[in-house]
């Protein structure tokens, strides 16, 4: 385990309680509504706030133990933090900002700058090296902040909403970059797609506590709270696009309204799918036959989980579920309009 954390901490009258482990090189995404304590949790891992109870072990190093009075300061933890507010040093150039961490780890100025330039290149800002942070746009500043944290080459990389202000295209690049970083990563995100694509483990936080832990698939299949269900209520499939034709990795082919080429993420709402027992004659471009994996009644609707060939959630009314006689194992037809699909670069 690269992270073993039992955390009970408080800042400004707000308390959090969290317990989780993360294996070496894994990516943990923390999701939750605003004010759930996600940033507080990250700050506790970073050593910016002390623990009231519990202990934290990072990459084999005991960094916090409330009962033994251990609290290792941030700079001696095997971490780097990229904060939500970027907090670039206004008096240093972009490249010197990124070189700051490597320099602190003992690298010579020349080598630190060299590493900084490599990272700036990776985030696509090599030509901004000599600018001041004030001259950057919000998205550029965020990429510099990310490069600055990653350039430390920490065992544990902590990212507080690192992709929030990036445009779609840059976001994809940065997501690939994050996926390739060998560090154990803990990231806060508000983007369900990001959480599911990047994370090996999802922590759902609400009111200062972790209310659910699991792989994205597990959490999506069985969301424990309405907030989680709302966040993850989006079907996500991957595939290869050629024009408006997408060959999904699960085997099914879909027709979309957005021509693309190459690897794509296809998302659609559970409300966009209609179910029928007989093969439908419909304007929907996509129909397929599937087996119902599970039925889960919710307050005013029924969540139907379809199995192969394209695992996805579908909402139907309780009346419709009755009329169709849906239960686990029922075979039915699914119909999905091309215009209901959102396609983006993977």
């Amino acid at each position, binding site marked *: 385990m690269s992270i073993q954390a039992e955390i009970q901490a408080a800042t400004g009258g707000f308390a959090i309680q969290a317990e989780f482990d993360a294996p070496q090189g894994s990516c943990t995404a923390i999701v939750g509504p605003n004010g759930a304590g996600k940033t507080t949790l990250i700050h506790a891992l970073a050593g910016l706030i002390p623990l009231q109870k519990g202990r934290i072990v990072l990459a084999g190093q005991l960094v916090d133990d409330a009962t033994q009075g251990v609290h290792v300061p941030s700079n001696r933890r095997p971490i*780097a933090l990229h904060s939500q507010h970027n907090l670039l040093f206004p008096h240093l150039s972009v490249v010197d900002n990124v070189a700051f961490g490597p320099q602190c780890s003992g690298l010579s100025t020349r080598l630190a700058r060299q590493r900084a330039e490599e990272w700036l290149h990776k985030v696509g800002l090599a030509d901004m090296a000599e600018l001041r942070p004030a001259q950057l*746009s919000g998205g550029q500043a965020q990429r510099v902040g990310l490069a600055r944290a990653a350039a430390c080459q920490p065992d544990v990389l902590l990212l507080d909403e690192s992709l929030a*202000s990036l445009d779609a295209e840059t976001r994809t690049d940065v997501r690939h970059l994050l996926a390739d970083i060998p560090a154990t990563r803990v990231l806060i995100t508000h983007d369900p797609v990001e959480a599911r694509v990047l994370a090996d483990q999802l922590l759902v936080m609400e009111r200062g506590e972790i209310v659910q832990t699991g792989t994205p698939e597990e959490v999506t299949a069985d969301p424990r709270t309405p907030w989680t269900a709302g966040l993850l209520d989006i079907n996500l499939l991957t595939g290869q696009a050629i024009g408006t034709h997408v060959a999904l990795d699960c085997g099914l082919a879909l027709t979309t309204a957005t021509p693309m080429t190459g690897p794509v993420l296809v998302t659609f709402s559970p409300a966009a799918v209609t179910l029928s027992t007989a093969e439908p004659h419909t304007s929907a471009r996509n129909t397929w036959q599937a087996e119902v994996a599970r039925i889960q009644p919710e307050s005013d609707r029924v969540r139907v989980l379809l199995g192969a060939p394209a695992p996805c959630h579908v909402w139907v009314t309780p009346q419709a579920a009755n009329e169709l006689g849906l239960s686990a194992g029922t075979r039915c037809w699914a119909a999905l309009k091309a215009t209901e699909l959102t396609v983006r670069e993977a």
Partner: protein
Amino acid sequence: MTDRPASKEPNRRPPIAILMMAVIAVTVLALPLVGLLQRTPWSSLGTTLGEAATLEALRVSVVVSLLAAALSVALGLPLAWVLARLSFRGRALVRAVVLLPMVLPPVVGGIALFFALGRRGLVGRALHNWFGLDTLIGTTAGAVIAAAFVSMPFFVITAEAGLRQLDPRLESAASTLGAGRWTVLRRITLPLLAPSLAAGATLSWARALGEFGATITFAGNHPGRTRTLPLAIAQANEAGQPEAAIAMSVLLIGVSLLILIGLRHRWIAPRTSQPDDSPKSSPS
């Protein structure tokens, strides 16, 4: 900044009444200077300023004011940090005491210093009894203490304001990137604070250069040791040598003006806000 367009471009003709009041204010402040300059014996200025006594007073002034400014920085910076960063009971009282010398007549400061550090004073007696350190009165060290007493508050408030403007999250960001306390201080805190520190130090130096009341009351008026330019000017004026007094005054005004002009951006215009305060402005 979302200023309304109207406020971007102010009315081209400012109200005449305001202009007139401003002109009167400048006149009140500048008239004495004009009076002085008009009486200045420009032809003999060089010889008057070249006299040994004048040069000696200038030397004492420079030494005393620089040492006082250095003392203000050395002691004032930790104090400013405490006032800006720690919250404790009685902080308001401490700040009031620190700023008191700015509003106190310097002569009161001099008398207070006398009863504290004089041979029979509260601390002065202890210094005498325990360390054999004799009175500071009449020494350059005494003059430095008197000048620091009146000038340190100028440094403290400037440095405290600078520290308050500095986002402490920048310092914690540095520590989460591996910087120890010393590195944070050296590479983040001090560079960001530099403009405020420079402004505060210069301001306190300027105040020390003009110091008169506390110095003459506490340290006395001894040529070569405590007689600074202001003391020498007063001396010359009372001894019926207005020409010498005027010449030295012009010298002092010149030096002070140079300092203030050098300072004007720092002291008058507030520092610009941190540029990355708005993280979610626009995507790249």
